[in-house]
């Protein structure tokens, strides 16, 4: 790792030591929460109140403010997991393992939200809850990939091995995501010339776009908060017998 400048590597070493990371997370979470709430409030206000009704879709389009950010996050989190997995496998970094595991339920949550909100949007727009469209199908499969990661981690008792297993799975899965995506897209166009009218992308108005972007950034901050909370728990679980946890217990008592 000689190509990494010494101060940088020192910084990583320090922040990746569990007690240090724990304290750091504790320090950051209030700030992150404040930013998240601000962005969320602004996004919701802009999206639900300020933005005009769509001339084609009526008010149902307002689902966009949660659907699209959630759908973006579902992909983003998986890519993050794969990166963490790579780091965990190559450098044996415990913190990367912890972040990987902590991300999985959050990513699964985003995927689930994208599916449900999409479905709820699809009923008024397409007249059906579900179509076997490329994007929808690959999102469903993404949910299974997340569930696989979560189940595999739960099933292996030795958590060090479990983290390794999950890192491998996340990496193999991420290689497959583009393949799945393109195969599904191709499969769909080969078979079916859009029986259901797809969303004609209306050139989105600026008053509609800004809240969408606000919500997207808000979701990123939400992810940071949630993953830090989960990582704190995971670190504690893994190091119950270590000295820093004992010290913290005494402080709490």
């Amino acid at each position, binding site marked *: 790792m000689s190509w990494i400048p010494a101060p940088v590597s020192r910084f990583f070493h320090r922040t990746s030591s569990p007690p240090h990371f724990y304290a750091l997370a504790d320090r950051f979470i209030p700030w992150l929460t404040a930013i998240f709430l601000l962005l969320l409030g602004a996004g919701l206000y802009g999206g639900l109140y300020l933005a005009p009704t769509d001339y084609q879709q009526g008010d149902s389009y307002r689902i966009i403010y949660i659907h699209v950010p959630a759908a973006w996050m579902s992909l983003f989190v998986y890519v993050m997991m794969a990166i963490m997995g790579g780091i965990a496998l190559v450098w044996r970094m415990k913190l990367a393992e912890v972040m990987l595991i902590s991300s999985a339920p959050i990513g699964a949550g985003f995927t689930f939200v994208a599916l449900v909100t999409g479905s709820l949007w699809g009923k008024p727009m397409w007249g059906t*809850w*579900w*179509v076997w469209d490329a994007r929808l199908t690959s999102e*469903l499969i993404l949910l*299974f990939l997340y569930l696989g990661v979560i189940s595999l981690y*739960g*099933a292996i008792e030795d958590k060090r091995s479990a983290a390794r297993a999950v890192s491998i799975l996340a990496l193999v899965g991420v290689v497959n995501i583009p393949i799945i995506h393109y195969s599904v897209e191709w*499969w769909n166009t080969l078979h079916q010339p859009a029986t259901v009218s797809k969303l004609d992308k209306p050139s989105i108005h600026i008053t509609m776009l800004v809240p969408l972007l606000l919500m997207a950034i808000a979701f990123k901050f939400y992810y940071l908060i949630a993953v830090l909370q989960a990582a704190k728990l995971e670190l504690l679980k893994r190091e119950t017998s270590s000295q820093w946890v004992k010290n913290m217990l005494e402080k709490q008592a």
Partner: protein
Amino acid sequence: MPLIRAFLAIIRRDLLLAFRRRAEMANPLFFFVLVVTLFPLAIGAQPNLLQAMAPGVIWVSALLATLLSLDSLFRSDFEDGSLEQMLLSPHALSVLVLGKIVAHWLVSGLPLLLVAPLLALFLGLPEQAMGTLWLTLILATPLLSLIGAIGVALTVGLRRGGMLLSLLVLPLYVPVLIFASGAVDRAAGGLPVGAQLNILLAMLLAALALAPLPTSIALKMSVN
């Protein structure tokens, strides 16, 4: 009564075990959902075709999911010696076995009841057939557990019984499959389904009365 106490203790313990092994518990459900989603992928997004296939696809998938969950019915008991202790207990073995089957259904059959309608919706099954789908699932999933138990009991002593189990059990599942998917199919077409449901009910009652006995005999043989 000690017998009823033992029966309930078995159900309680198996549910507790299922809860402790949560990760495994959800698996038949995942498998069911996965297999159902494979079909649209394999056949292409042709709504009419999918709709016509829906009853068959859902029922075949339910069958396979139950089949794969069967292995867990006696496997761990066999491996850790609990099965021997059950055989040696002074209570009627058939009743204890029935307790295990009930627990198995609660863990692996019941969840199917909850997601099957959702998947049916995804496949485009007409709303008027939903009720029938539900009824057939309620009647037939316990039946699958009961019939399957005989097969597992016969193969639990074998190292890799999984495949053999499917060969034994799938043929026995055929009547269930025919009546259940037939009923849903007819309901989708707006036809009456009373006869099919009655037959399923009769089969369920018969299996409840008859299946535990051969299962216990087979278990005794497997432990030998």
